[in-house]
């Protein structure tokens, strides 16, 4: 009762203050949503306009025909987007499978065995997380070149597989929660360590594998710098580099560039809407290495 009396005297406890606070809260969220959505929305409306509409109407005007997909056809065909999606898919499949094999094997060895230099191995992986990839590219380029992998798809694939220490961490976190008694039981039945890895550990790591597939998939799909540097040939263009090349030939044709950008964003939007929950969880566990 006493508390209630005190409360009544505080201005920010009054019903009016509450209403205003709630209003401000929604207003700030709505404002932020406009800031996020408006730039993307103008891209969408622009992509549906004809060249004449572009010349005559203002930027914020709406397209007269919402089903004018001409710019998408131009972007898709002249921008080599089919090839780009194909190349990206190729990189995605090989790099992700490779990263999963490498990551799970490393995590299995580190967590399930005792051996000399184990501490050293762990710190080697640990320190590597701190080395920012973008700085070492100057020298990594020479390594890839020495392997004769410059301007092939395998250069980026090896880099995506080999410089991915984040997924090793995700696997390590998960593998620690798999009871060792399961390994022991399998061992009692005479299973070899590889059999344990394949039939006990890998299946139980499925949630971690799903997380890695999502994080790595989005990362590789969005990666610009590595393909830009290591695969300059036009026929090796991935999503990012092909879209980047729109800048030249389509110069000021913003309706075509917009269509290209929307084509690139659309798959991300669909994946996000379908896998929302996994994506939030994946990035919160993966981003903070």
């Amino acid at each position, binding site marked *: 009762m006493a*508390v209630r009396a005190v409360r009544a005297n505080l201005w920010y406890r009054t019903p009016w203050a509450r209403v205003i606070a709630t209003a401000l809260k929604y207003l700030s969220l709505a404002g*932020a949503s406009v800031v996020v959505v408006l730039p993307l929305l*103008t891209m969408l409306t622009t992509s549906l306009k004809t060249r004449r509409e572009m010349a005559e109407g203002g930027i914020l005007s709406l397209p007269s025909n919402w089903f004018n997909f001409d710019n998408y056809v131009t972007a898709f065909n002249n921008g080599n987007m089919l090839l780009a999606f194909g190349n990206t898919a190729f990189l995605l499949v090989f790099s992700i499978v490779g990263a999963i094999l490498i990551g799970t094997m490393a995590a299995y060895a580190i967590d399930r065995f005792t051996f000399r230099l184990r501490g050293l191995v762990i710190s080697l992986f640990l320190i590597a997380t701190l080395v920012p990839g*973008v*700085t070492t*590219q100057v020298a990594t380029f020479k390594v890839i070149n020495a392997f004769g992998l410059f301007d092939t798809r395998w250069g980026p694939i090896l880099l995506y597989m080999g410089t991915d220490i984040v997924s090793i961490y995700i696997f390590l976190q998960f593998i620690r929660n798999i009871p060792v008694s399961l390994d022991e039981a399998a061992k009692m039945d005479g299973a070899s360590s590889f059999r344990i890895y394949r039939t006990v550990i890998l299946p139980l790591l499925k949630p971690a594998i799903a997380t890695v597939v999502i994080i790595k998939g989005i990362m590789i799909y969005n990666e610009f710098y590595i393909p830009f540097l290591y695969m300059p040939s036009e026929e090796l263009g991935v999503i990012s580099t092909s879209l*980047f090349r729109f800048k030249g030939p389509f110069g000021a044709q913003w309706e075509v560039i917009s269509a290209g*950008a929307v084509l690139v964003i659309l798959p991300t939007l669909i994946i996000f809407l379908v896998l929302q929950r996994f994506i939030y969880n994946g990035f919160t566990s993966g981003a903070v290495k």
Partner: protein
Amino acid sequence: MAITPLTARTRKSFEPQHAAPPQRKWRRLTPWLYLLVPLAFLVTFTYVPVANMISYSFTDWDGFSPEKQYVGLDNYAQLFTRPELFQVFYVSLFYLVASLLQIALALYFATVLSFNMRFRNFFKGVLFFPYLLNGVAVAFVFLYLFQPGGTLDSVLALFGIDNKILWLGDPDLVNVSLSGVSVWRFLGLNFVLFLGAIQSVPSEIHEAAELDGATRPQVFWHVILPSIRPIISLSVILGITGSLSVFEIPWIMTGGSGESKTFVIQTIKLAFQFNKMGLASAAAVVLLVAILLIAWVQRRLIPDEVTAGSR
């Protein structure tokens, strides 16, 4: 660190103490068989480049000619004395301020959305979505937005501000615009990290505090903030290292020309356009050392078990 050899230790007691020597030798080799490929990758693509980079940094190598001259610390001296090379650190300050603003905004939105409210999932999705987008697409979206007479100018005109502002052309403004794009793009990650941390604080604690008469702002300052401090300081550290290694957005939007040139863009240009491999390597080493130093300071400041918990 986060990895405790606990499972490995309990496992040891199961191992037969009287195993035959050849078998034991095999067993000692087994972990290395699994580590062979991962370590080969780690060494080839992380440690070999770092080692090479350090050795190039003491030479005047152009990147392809067979001979290189040892020049000692000359490259490093150039980096810190030639003002046109040093200027890039000034550019980082824009991104640093932007990333602090980004953390503050993310913290605000995470706190607001940690309470039950209408359209919660919608707002959460909208705030996070930009983080998932392709950088090239984001760069194009904002090139269009910042154009003279583009979306931003048109929207400002609706509010009666009818200036044709050169958002990317004005040397005083270009870094503000570009770091704004960076906030737009990366806020979502901070936001989701904070939201996750806030929601892992047991709700009984909030409720108890509110029952005791604490206001929402008081709950924020005295309950929420202290319990997510590790993740905030981690974000600040990531913000600092991130603002030193800005590359993609300015590279695509302005080509990294003039005032918008960042440290990494300068390094890349030195290496691949001006064929100054030695100087570029020295720059990369400076950045690497700076980032390692910052990471080390972070480890000092934040107690180990807290970092382990957030991992």
